[in-house]
């Protein structure tokens, strides 16, 4: 057991650091705006794409890719080391999670050689940013309940429907897309997977206003969108299997990074009066903080164990669902607790608020829903990790258009 890098890992980290140091300075001169609240989403996308271009040119753009597509075929662990170092200097690299973490492995696994040649270079060189058109109003937890239809028209497909909760749709160039091509067969069997140019006629992106008041996600309306059959990944009717590749990779891509707000809650407790002293002096507050810290440390250490798995060439399993489950619920209650510590002043928001709590009180609502609700995560853990039987399915062998939908 050793928490430090192996000699090889340390060497790779050193190389990564060195390249980053050399390049970030110059990059920031060329793109002189500060990363922060004042950067619009499109500026951020532009910046992220320019940075990808720079990495690509330096040989750090597609570390795990096959050499055939311009990659270096390094291990996931080495890629993670680079990502760790990169995160310290370039906070916007995360804009590529969907592109590199989800679209790329799916294209590589299910695309033809021609599709790979056509789609991958413009990703590698920072030309195109991608988003993911999966969820729909009636297909969230039940993702296979997708209703967006694709109908064959000669060599093209005509697509109609609505997607929802699409991160980055408003700044993306291309997208991965799952649609229903046959509603008369069982629901998992009638889906097909496509790639699509977001500038195609008939694609309309509208921001969603969240319960928090912010807008990070979009609805995407698809009206008579025409795409050639050559943009289909894998066979007609194989969409569910292809989507599984995307989702398996989502888990790996999204895995590590999270904020556990331990420092923030300590800060609130230290600076807020309670009784004759400060909240941090109150034994009840202390016990609650300890309860959260123990969970946060658990998640941090789970993350380290996952890295260790990567280090040995393994792939993180569905255990990653644990982190999201614990964080979602935990951070919501932590935010509420921080407001409680502030007492009557806990109602204040934005500039008038103390601490991060009033923002997270709302934002964490979404954390328990996006990328798998608490309930779906518990299903995943109990079925895929613990091996318990699946829920009884009433929609399994029923043609999709005959599945009860309440409509």
């Amino acid at each position, binding site marked *: 057991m050793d928490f430090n890098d192996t000699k090889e890992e340390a060497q790779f980290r050193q190389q990564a650091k060195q390249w980053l140091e050399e390049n970030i300075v110059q990059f920031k001169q060329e793109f002189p705006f500060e990363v922060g609240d004042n950067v619009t989403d499109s500026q951020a996308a532009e910046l992220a794409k320019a940075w990808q271009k720079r990495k690509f040119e330096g040989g750090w753009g597609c570390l795990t890719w096959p050499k055939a597509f311009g990659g270096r075929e390094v291990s996931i662990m080495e890629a993670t080391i680079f990502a760790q170092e990169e995160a310290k200097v370039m906070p916007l690299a995360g804009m590529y999670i969907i592109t590199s973490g989800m679209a790329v492995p799916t294209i590589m696994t299910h695309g033809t050689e021609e599709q790979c040649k056509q789609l991958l270079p413009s990703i590698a060189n920072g030309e195109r940013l991608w988003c993911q058109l999966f969820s729909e109003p009636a297909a969230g937890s039940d993702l296979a309940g997708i209703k967006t239809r694709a109908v064959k028209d000669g060599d093209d497909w005509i697509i109609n429907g609505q997607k929802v909760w699409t991160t980055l749709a408003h700044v993306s160039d291309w997208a991965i897309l799952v649609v229903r091509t046959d509603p008369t067969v069982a629901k998992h069997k009638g889906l097909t997977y496509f790639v699509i140019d977001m500038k195609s006629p008939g694609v309309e992106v509208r921001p969603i206003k969240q319960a928090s008041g912010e807008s990070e996600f979009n609805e995407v309306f698809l009206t008579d969108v025409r795409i050639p059959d050559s943009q289909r990944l894998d066979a007609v009717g194989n969409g569910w299997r292809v989507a599984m590749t995307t989702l398996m990779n989502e888990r790996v891509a999204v895995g590590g990074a999270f904020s556990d707000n331990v420092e923030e809650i300590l800060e609130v407790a230290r600076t807020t009066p309670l009784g004759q002293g400060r909240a941090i002096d109150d034994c009840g507050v202390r016990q609650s903080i300890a309860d959260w810290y123990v969970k946060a440390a658990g998640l941090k250490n789970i993350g380290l164990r996952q890295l260790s798995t990567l280090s040995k060439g393994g792939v993180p399993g569905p255990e990653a669902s644990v982190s999201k489950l614990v964080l979602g619920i935990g951070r919501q209650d932590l935010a509420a607790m921080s407001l409680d510590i502030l007492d009557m002043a806990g109602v204040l928001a934005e500039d008038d608020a103390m601490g991060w709590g009033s923002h997270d009180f709302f934002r964490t609502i979404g954390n328990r829903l996006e990328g798998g609700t608490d*309930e779906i995560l518990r299903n995943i853990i109990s079925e895929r990790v613990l091996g318990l039987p699946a829920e009884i399915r009433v929609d399994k062998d029923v043609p999709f258009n005959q599945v009860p939908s*309440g409509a």
Partner: protein
Amino acid sequence: MNFEFSDEQNMLREQARAYLAEHCSTEVVRKVLESDLSFDTKLWQGTVEMGWTSAATPEEYSGLGLSEMELCVIAEELGRSLAPIPFGSSIYLAAQAVLLAGSEAQKQQWLPRLSHGETIGTLALSEGAGSPSYDLLQAQVRNGKLTAKKTPVIDGMIADMAIVVARGDSGKPGLYLADLSAAGVERKLLSSIDESRPQAEIIFTDTAVELLGEGQALIEQLLDRAAILFAFEQLGGAQRALEMAVQYASERFAFGRQIGSFQAIKHKLADMFATLEMCKANCYYAAWALTTSSDDLPLAAATARVSASQAYYQCSKENIQVHGGSGFTWELDAHLYYRRAKVLSLVIGGERRWKERVVSQLETAEAGAPTAA
């Protein structure tokens, strides 16, 4: 033994519910939440006309002279409909304070106007983040002049008068009556998590005030009584949030089934119901204690308050969760209850303060009469 509201009180409830269904849809709430409006003046006027603002004011101060029980019924319905009006501030807090501690002249001066909605009142208690003990109270009254920074004050921008908690010449904390149009009053609107019930900072500089009454016991008596009325608002909101969740779980299909047929959802809703039932029973008991001014009032008030804060948080939070992604949209009403739940649980002090009061009351009770145990 009769532990239910009377037929008349239930009629009042039905009347209130019908009125609010018509005049206080969530669109009305959103109108205040999403704009610069501080409250819905039409609805406020409506509550005056319905006699709700004057329900518990004695007839000699031109009120209806009904009991606090009627006020509890009204509070529950106002909470249920998320009414964006200064009812709690003006009635549970300001009018109650005058009624409790005011001189005859003060009552004559303020109660008729508060009860008829001509004057809006509020309580200025908090002095910023945290809950320091009364010993650390900053607000000072010297020779009838108040110097204080009170923040946040609910309905502070629209209030005409405020009951201010401050330390007087005697060194004791007390309740002071401030006319907010007087000299030396500066106010600032604050951004907050539920702007359908807006908050303000009020700075008093040598502002002339009148003493209502002194002593920590008086302040706590006022807060205890208000806690019960706020608890009914919380109960109403929590109940509505559970209803929304049950309805959605019955209508929404996933995997070819109503999502309410999945145990994870069913059991979540069952737990919400359990919390709500306890809350309701605690509120009812507190209403009785309030109306009869039972010795049990402080304990019953703190119990109802903690119970209601917990129930509303749980029900409003899990209602969103049951709604899935749509629960996270601004468009859906679920977040309105979640916002209000937090604001109501923090007004007049958060759970920690009231749990502390539960235990200190239990300690007192143990010394004397038997407890609920």
